[in-house]
Structure formats: C-alpha cells, structure tokens
C-alpha cells in the first residue's frame, strides 16, 4: 500500500510548514489528487489517520481536491478528457494519447491555529 509512504510524507511536510509558522496544531490539510495519479483517496485517508497519530495533524480534517484527467490524441490532434487508463480517444478510438493533466499529487495548503497571531494581539 504505497498510500502509507505518501501519507507519512504529507504529515512530514505539513508538520514542517506548521512548525515554521510556530503553530501547535494543524486543523486541516488540503491534498490535490489527480484522477490518473494512481492513488486512492480512501486508502490515503486511512493511512493519514494512522500516520498523523501523535503529530500536530492528529485531528486535522483532510480535504481532497480531485482534478480531472485530460490528454491529447496524437492521431486526431485534439484534447480529450481521460478518466482512466487505457486512455482511448472517443473519436478515432486510438490509444495514442499523451496525458496533460490528472497525475497530480500535491499538498496544496494547511490550516493551522494561529496561536502566534493571537498572542501578538493580546
């Protein structure tokens, strides 16, 4: 289950960013998962639950942004949408398709409790 390696990395990056901002708790993590990334959001959620135990992200909400897949048919020379592999052109039914989008796997943002800001305002 490669999602566990990915989950550990997500928590590592989230904690490092939160520490830079002097936060004590991460309230949410936003992850972009492309439809063609080869990653199951459900499996990733399961692994994030385990990977975040005892970390600043222990109770964080996980927000997934699913990005659609798209490609380019090398025969028709047109852009097409691709939801899964094999990528087949709906017009010529050929499989000569290059992928443009949908393989993304990114940590977009994290939300933290702004303790520092609150203290500064006191």
């Amino acid at each position, binding site marked *: 289950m490669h999602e566990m390696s990915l989950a550990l990395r997500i928590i590592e990056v989230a904690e490092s960013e939160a520490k830079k901002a002097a*936060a004590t708790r991460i309230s949410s993590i936003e992850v972009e998962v492309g439809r063609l990334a080869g990653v199951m959001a459900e499996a990733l959620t399961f692994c994030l639950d385990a990977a975040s135990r005892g970390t600043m992200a222990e109770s964080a909400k996980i*927000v997934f942004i*699913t990005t659609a897949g798209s490609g380019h048919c090398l025969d028709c020379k047109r852009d097409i949408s691709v939801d899964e592999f*094999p990528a087949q052109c709906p017009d010529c039914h050929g499989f000569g398709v290059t992928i443009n989008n949908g393989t993304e796997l990114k940590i977009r943002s994290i939300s933290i*409790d*702004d303790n520092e800001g609150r203290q500064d305002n006191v």
Partner: protein
Amino acid sequence: MCDSCHCNGNHDHQNVTIHHRSSHSHNHSQTEKTIRVERDVLDKNNTLGAANRAFFARQQILALNLVSSPGSGKTSILERTIRDVGRELTISVIEGDQQTVRDAERIQATGAEAIQVNTGTGCHLDAHMIQSALPQLKPTPHSLLFIENVGNLVCPALFDLGEAAKVVIISVTEGEDKPLKYPHMFRAASICVINKIDLLPYLDFDLALCKELARQVNPELIFFEVSAKNGDGFDNWYHWLRQEFLLINTVENS
C-alpha cells in the same frame, strides 16, 4: 483565486471531498490561518531519484528497475542474464524483498555482486533505499545495475529510483489482461518482458492479445518474449542490453 480552496481555479469544485476523521474535535473559536504549501507529495523521492540518476550517469552505469507481480521469474531472468553476459558486462544487483536474503544469495551464487534491501512491511523500493544501498554495493563504473523491486504491480509504479528504465515482467501463467488491471505499472515501464513462454503449449494464454492490451495502456512498450527455463528469446534481450549499455557509454563519452 478560488475562494473554496485558495487555488488558481483549475479544478471542478464538485470534486472537493472532506474527510472528517473520528478524532476530529477541536475548539473552532481559535483563529485559523491557511498556509499555501503547493508541494508535490513525491518531491523528496523524486529529488533523491534524480541524484541517483546523476550518479549512474557519472559512473556510466546502466540501471534497470525490474518490476512484476510475485513469481513472474525476475530472479530467474537475472540469474540467466548474469550467467550469459556476466563475463562481457559487469553486473551487480540490488534485491528488494519484504523479508529474507534468499534472492541475494541466488544472485551471489552466479558470481555477481548483490545486496539485499529488506523493506519490512514496505511494498516497494524508494529512491532513498537505493541511495543507501549504493555505498555498500559499490557498483563498478561502466557496468549494469539491476534493481529487482518488490513483487508488486501497484506501488513501485510511483517511485522513481533513478533508473534508466522500468522493465515490467509478466509470465504466461498470469492473465493476458494484467496490463489492463495494473495500467499504472505498464505505463511507467518502457520495456515488457514476457516470461515462461516454454509453457505456452500447455496454457490458454493468448500472447498476441496480452501484447495488444499492453500497447493500449502504453503504445511505446518494447517487448521481449523469453523462457528463463530454457533460454529461448534471451538473445534479443541481450542485444537490447548491449545496445543500451553502449548508448549510455557513448553519450557520456561524447
């Protein structure tokens, strides 16, 4: 900027899903601050993979990452390859398995240098494991390095180890539709070796169909049909290995 998720708006908001976890409970009255991160989850692995690739290029080492389901015959293919071309080309091997040093011992018996990397509960090798194994293995400059990945057609597809190519191995005792079932691996690979062809007379395996389905997933795949048992088809595989080996040496020397 998109207000819902602070991105550049290049996605469909119907596809935003929030996973509340059982332990999700905190004081919402605290001030929340959002920090944009925009980091590829695989960035660390990819950076280490690039460092491995640069090392292989400097040393003129042709590194190939062998991937397959368990039991397809990766180790048998390696044993035969080392026995047949090991005098002509220096070959070393990184063996990846969850447990045991059995495969490394099989490879060492052929006379090649081999190191075993046990992933424990892990399901794939990553670039850091390869980076850590290299100082111990010390592959010779101008040589061939085979990385035998954990038998798994899913997870190793995502992890760049710094190899020149992923070689996916399938055996004719498996279903012809493996490429459709595990498309990410067949897309990540550039070479497909079909093993155990000596068994074709006894099976219903449709070789042409298997190749056709694999080409649907990855039209660029190059195929080799071999039998690690009797050696059939290995000449083509060796010809390709020699060509690739010469290519990296020529490129680096030019």
